[in-house]
C-alpha cells in the first residue's frame, strides 16, 4: 500500500440504474434482470417437490420448511417493518393448531375450511392478547410475547382442557402428498409477494414510519395503535395459518405446538437470511431447516451447531445473506485512490 491510500467504492450497475425507471420494460434484458431473482425463487419452490419425488421424506421436510418460512416472514414483517419484535412465534402456531383441532375434530369442518377458519380465529385471539402491550417498546414487548406461549401451555396443563398434556389427535390429513406440498408452497409464495406489495402501498409506508418515528405519525393524526394492531393481525394470520396446517399434516394438536423451537428458528432464519425484505426470511429457512435435518444424526449437538451459526451471523455478518447477495447483484465494487 506504501502511502497510497485506497478504498473500496460501490457503484450501481448500469442495468440497475436503467431498470429503476420507466425503462424497466424497455427491453427483455431489463425485464429479465428485474424479474430474475423472483422467477428463480418461484420456480425453485414450485419444482422442489417434483425434484424430491425420489425422496419422500424430504418432501415432508419441505412442508415443515414452509411453515417455518411463514413464521419467519411474519417475524420479519413485524420486527423490521413495523418495529415490533415478537419473540412468541410459537403462540401463533399453538393457537392456529388448537383452533384447527377444535374446528376439525369437534365441529367436523373439512380441512379446506378448518385451516383458514383457524387462521382467522387464531389471529383474532393473538391480536386481542397483544393489544394491551402494543404501547410497550423494545425489550418489554419482546419479553411479554415470549411469555405468552408459556402461559398458554401452563393454563392448558393446569386446567386440563383441550386434551391436557395428551393433546388432541385424529385430525384429518390432506388427501394426497401433492396437495399437501403445493397448498403450503402456494400460500408461502402468495404471502411473500402479497406482503411485499402491501409494504409498498400507503399503509405499508405508514407502518414503516411507525417503526422509524411513531411520534411523528401520531402528530400527522394517524392512530398508531390501530396501525400496529392491524400489522399484528396480519402477521398472526400468517403464523396461525402455519400452525393450523402443521396440526393437519401431523393429524394432531398438543402442548408442544407452543414449543420454543417455533419461536427461535424463525428468528434465526431471519438473522441468517437478512431482515427487512421478507425474501431473506425464506432464504434463511431454506438454509437452516435442511441444515438441521443433516445434523439430525448428532442429536442435541445440532442445537449447538446452529446456535453457533446464528451467533456467528449476528456478530460477524449481521446484514444476512440476502442483503449481501442483493448488494452483489445490484452493485459492483472497485478500488479507488484516495
Amino acid at each position, binding site marked *: 500500500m506504501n502511502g497510497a491510500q485506497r478504498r473500496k467504492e460501490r457503484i450501481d450497475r448500469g442495468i440497475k440504474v436503467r431498470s429503476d425507471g420507466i425503462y424497466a420494460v424497455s427491453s427483455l434484458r431489463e425485464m429479465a434482470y428485474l424479474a430474475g431473482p423472483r422467477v428463480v425463487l418461484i420456480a425453485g419452490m414450485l419444482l422442489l417437490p417434483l425434484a424430491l419425488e425420489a425422496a419422500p421424506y424430504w418432501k415432508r421436510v419441505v412442508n415443515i420448511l414452509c411453515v417455518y418460512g411463514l413464521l419467519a416472514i411474519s417475524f420479519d414483517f413485524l420486527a423490521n417493518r413495523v418495529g415490533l419484535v415478537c419473540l412468541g412465534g410459537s403462540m401463533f402456531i399453538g393457537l392456529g393448531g388448537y383452533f384447527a383441532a377444535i374446528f376439525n375434530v369437534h365441529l367436523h369442518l373439512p380441512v379446506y375450511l378448518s385451516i383458514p377458519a383457524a387462521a382467522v380465529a387464531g389471529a383474532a385471539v393473538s391480536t386481542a392478547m397483544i393489544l394491551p402491550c402494543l404501547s410497550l417498546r423494545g425489550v418489554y414487548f419482546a419479553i411479554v410475547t415470549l411469555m405468552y406461549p408459556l402461559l398458554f401451555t401452563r393454563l392448558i396443563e393446569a386446567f386440563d382442557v383441550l386434551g391436557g398434556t395428551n393433546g388432541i389427535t385424529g385430525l384429518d390429513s390432506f388427501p394426497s402428498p401433492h396437495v399437501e406440498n403445493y397448498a403450503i408452497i402456494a400460500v408461502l409464495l402468495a404471502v411473500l409477494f402479497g406482503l411485499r406489495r402491501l409494504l409498498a402501498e400507503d399503509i405499508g409506508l405508514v407502518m414503516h414510519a411507525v417503526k422509524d418515528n411513531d411520534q411523528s405519525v401520531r402528530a400527522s393524526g394517524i392512530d398508531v395503535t390501530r396501525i400496529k394492531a392491524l400489522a399484528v393481525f396480519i402477521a398472526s394470520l400468517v403464523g396461525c395459518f402455519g400452525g393450523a396446517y402443521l396440526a393437519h399434516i401431523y393429524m394432531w394438536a398438543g402442548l408442544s405446538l407452543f414449543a420454543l423451537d417455533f419461536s427461535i428458528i424463525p428468528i434465526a432464519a431471519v438473522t441468517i437470511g437478512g431482515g427487512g425484505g421478507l425474501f431473506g426470511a425464506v432464504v434463511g429457512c431454506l438454509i437452516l431447516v435442511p441444515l438441521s435435518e443433516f445434523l439430525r444424526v448428532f442429536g442435541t449437538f445440532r442445537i449447538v451447531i446452529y446456535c453457533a451459526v446464528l451467533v456467528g451471523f449476528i456478530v460477524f455478518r*449481521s446484514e444476512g445473506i440476502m442483503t449481501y447477495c442483493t448488494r452483489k447483484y445490484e452493485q459492483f465494487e472497485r478500488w479507488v485512490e484516495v
Partner: protein
Amino acid sequence: MDILVYGAINSATLSLMALGFTLVYSISRLPNFAHGALYVTTGYIVWLGVNALGLGYLPAIAVGIAATAVIGGLIYRLFILRIRGMEISEIIATYAVGLAVIEGLRWGGLRGSTFTLPSFLAGTVDVGGIVVDYQRIFVLVLGAAVFAGLNLFVRHTKTGLALKAIAQDERAAMMLGIDSDGKALVSFAVGAGLSAFAAVLILPLGNIVVETGYNVLLYSIAVSIIGGLGSFGGAILASLIIGFAQVLTEVFLSAHYQMVISLLAIIVTLLVRPSGIFGKQKELDDRV
C-alpha cells in the same frame, strides 16, 4: 409460620438467582439471556472439580466461580461487544450462546439425575416447630450477605462507583474518563460470578440438570421485570412477592398453579407498569 419460613427461603433463592441478571442489566443495559446457562455451567464445573479432578469441595467451588466469571467476561468480549446497542441482537445472541452452552452440556453427558453436589453441612434445624435443613439457612444468610456486600461495593469502592455512574448516565461518565466498555466487561464478569455463586449455594439442594438453566432464566426475567429492570431494591421486593405468592399458591391452591401465577404476574406488571415497581426508566420511554 411455615409459610413465613419457607416463603423467606423461597424468596432468597429467587433473588439470588436473579441477582446476576439484574446487576448486568442495571449497569450496562444488557439483557443477559445466557444467565441460566452460566448457572448450570458452574454446577457442572464444580461437580467435575469434586468428582473428576479430586479437588476438595471448597477449592472446587472457588474454581467454579472464577471460571464462570471468566466465561462471562469472554462472552462479553467475543460477542456482545460487537453488537452493543442493538437490543434485539443482544437478546438473540446471548440467548443463542446460552442455548448452545446448555445443549452442549446435555450432549456432553450432563444427563440423568446422578449429578449432585453435597450440601455444606448435613442435618436439619428446628425453626419454631418447622424443620429446615442447614443448606437452606445458608442460602438465606449468605444471600443476605451477598446483597449487603454488593451494596458496599457499589457505594464505597472506586469500581463500584464507576459502575453506578455508567448506570446513571453513560455519556457523562465517559466524558469523565470512565471506560464504559471495560466496565461493562467487569459487570458482565461480576454478574456471571454472582450467578455462579447462586448456583453453588442453591444446587446442593437439588441436582444439576440442564433444564434448570431455562428455569433460572425465566425466574430471573420475572423478578427483574416485576421489580423494575436494573433495580436491586425492586429485585428483592419482587422476589418476596413471587416467593411468597408461590408458597401461598402451594398451600392454599395447588402447586401446579405456581408457574401460572409467576407468568401472570409478569404480564400484568408489564401491562400496568412496564418499568416495574422500582424501575428507573421513565414511563414515557417505554410507552408510546
